[in-house]
């Protein structure tokens, strides 16, 4: 995973709450066996609508999505994170993320920045009044800055550290392999096996 410290890019206002994973990428687009190429499925139903924000200049070149609350609800498909990243997004801002989506983002290197809803509204207004405004997200300082507006965001310290360092979870866990082996030795024999 690439390390993440700051990112600057065009902000995209998505004035919708409860953007579920079937909206982010419908199931019919989940059939690839790679981690790439999912951008064609991103928001596919909405992209048929010419007025949809990603069909408009300059938002189509955006890399910071500013969405309504409860972003990423529904399925566990990490393909939702890959679709956003394959399209070019590096950051999603929302006042509340679904648990699995937030976890998947952290694993794949997409920054899910939790910003209070009143600040999300300010960002929306700014981006709509001045399309093309760039947003700078600073993970060290935990701030979101656009024009003369700077607001804080929340992320747990451990995820922040992992993103800043670009660390791989499996590698971190394997440092404790002796603990895993010891735990296995103590598991009751009655527990089921699949083979």
């Amino acid at each position, binding site marked *: 995973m690439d390390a993440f410290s700051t990112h600057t890019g065009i902000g995209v206002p998505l004035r*919708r*709450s*409860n953007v*579920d994973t*079937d*909206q982010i990428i*419908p*199931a*019919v687009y*989940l*059939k*690839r*066996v*790679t*981690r790439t190429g999912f951008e064609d499925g991103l928001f596919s*139903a909405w992209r048929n609508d010419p007025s949809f924000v990603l069909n408009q200049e300059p938002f189509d070149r955006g890399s910071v999505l500013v969405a*309504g*609350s*409860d972003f990423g*609800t*529904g*399925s*566990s*498909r*990490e393909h939702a*994170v890959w679709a956003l990243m394959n399209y070019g997004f590096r950051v999603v801002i929302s006042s*509340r993320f*679904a*648990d*699995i989506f937030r*976890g*998947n983002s952290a*694993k*794949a290197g997409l920054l899910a920045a939790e910003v209070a809803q009143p600040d999300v509204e300010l960002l929306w207004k700014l981006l709509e009044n001045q399309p093309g405004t760039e947003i700078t997200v600073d993970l060290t300082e935990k701030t979101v800055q656009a024009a003369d507006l700077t607001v804080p965001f929340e992320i*747990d*310290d*451990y*995820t922040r*550290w*992992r993103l800043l360092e670009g660390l791989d*979870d*499996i590698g*971190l*866990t*394997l440092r*404790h*392999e002796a*603990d*895993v082996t010891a*735990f*296995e030795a103590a*598991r*009751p*024999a*009655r*527990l*089921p*096996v*699949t*083979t």
Partner: protein
Amino acid sequence: MARTLAEKVWDLHLVRSGKKGGQSGDEPDLLYIDLHLVHEVTSPQAFDGLRLAGRPVRRPDLTLATEDHNVPTKDVELPISDPVSRTQVETLRRNCAEFGVPLYPMNHAEQGIVHVVGPQLGLTQPGTTVVCGDSHTSTHGAFGAMAFGIGTSEVEHVLATQTLPLRRFKTMSITVNSADGTLRPGVTSKDVVLAIIAQIGTGGGQGYVLEYRGNVIENLSMEARMTICNMSIEAGARAGMIAPDDTTFAYLQGRDRAPKGTQWDEAVAAWRELRSDDDAVFDAEVQIDGDTLTPFVTWGTNPGQGLPLGERVPDPAQIVDENARVSAEKALTYMGLTAGMPLREVAVDTVFVGSCTNGRIEDLRAAADVIKGRTVADGVRMLVVPGSMRVRFQAEDEGLDDVFTAAGAEWRSAGCSMCLGMNPDQLAPGERAASTSNRNFEGRQGKGGRTHLVSPLVAAATAVRGTLSSPEDLL
């Protein structure tokens, strides 16, 4: 210290407590995983990751794969016609062979939806941890297991290490009581969970493990309990649990992978400890009055947008919260519904009975009971898709397939099918379905398709009348 059920199961699987503080922040705990279920959609990139790093699957004997999301439900003896779906299924077969993971492929007698297969084999047991790259893994919590969906990176992590780094969940109790512990006639556990989600909202359970309790829950069968735990994720919770009891033990006893002999006695003794202590404190508590519950249906595009069937389509103008109002307006436009319309007058094109929510034998029996001797309304197609091959064969032994086909419904083979439309079972744009599945998201069952979530009883009655109905409308 007094602990909840969820906390007890957590503590039983703690490989290592995360260190607190320091520059890296609070580390997560490292938890051991007892059972890892795998399917074709969320696993290929995980196996690729293992190959790239040269890592084996640590415990193939705690891992089980089935083919469910992509599989067609008719002409199952033929090769899958969609080449992309076929590639995904073939990739799973290759990966399982290479890494030694047991697999139940299409046409195998044990094939089916992962969340139907695990419990029916007796693999899902009280006090275990169960994960799968699928959010409806919460289903297995009905046995008092800690079960939750994970993304593909986590699938790879579990394959490689049989553990997951996790932060403790908060706990929420949801108590459903009624005067005599029963629900009104025609009311099922599906109605209970739809009512719960309507009350707490699609984000209400976020960050929590839900524990369902109360006399209504205690009197439910295992399959009915699975329906409730299945939809915990639709309230935003990763997991839902029910304390194991004699109903749980009776369901498990004698199943293929359940403990036998003295191990059975030892297991039951341990399982009886798996309940929240009387003085355990939950982070949040919700009460539901079971006596007031009636058949419940959704009218909108998220599972929290539901109402009793006897109500009318809501008027967004009456909704005070701006977010909820805008969301309701968008939902009504998408659903093609008018505020004030009685829900009982909403006409459907398709009825789907199946999925990991309601594709088990009791669900099929309930739907068959309603439709027996009646016919599916003109212009309505009804699809009945068993959740597994075992369910299919059992239903056929009981003659349920004949009941459905005599009524004019289609009887299919096992899979996820129209719940998410990854196979050919899809809604056409604008088509409307009453569906026993779990998500009414825009386009979930096919691009432009409109979904009303219902119980198997409501599904069957709706098929007969052609509009959203409960069995009492047929009298």
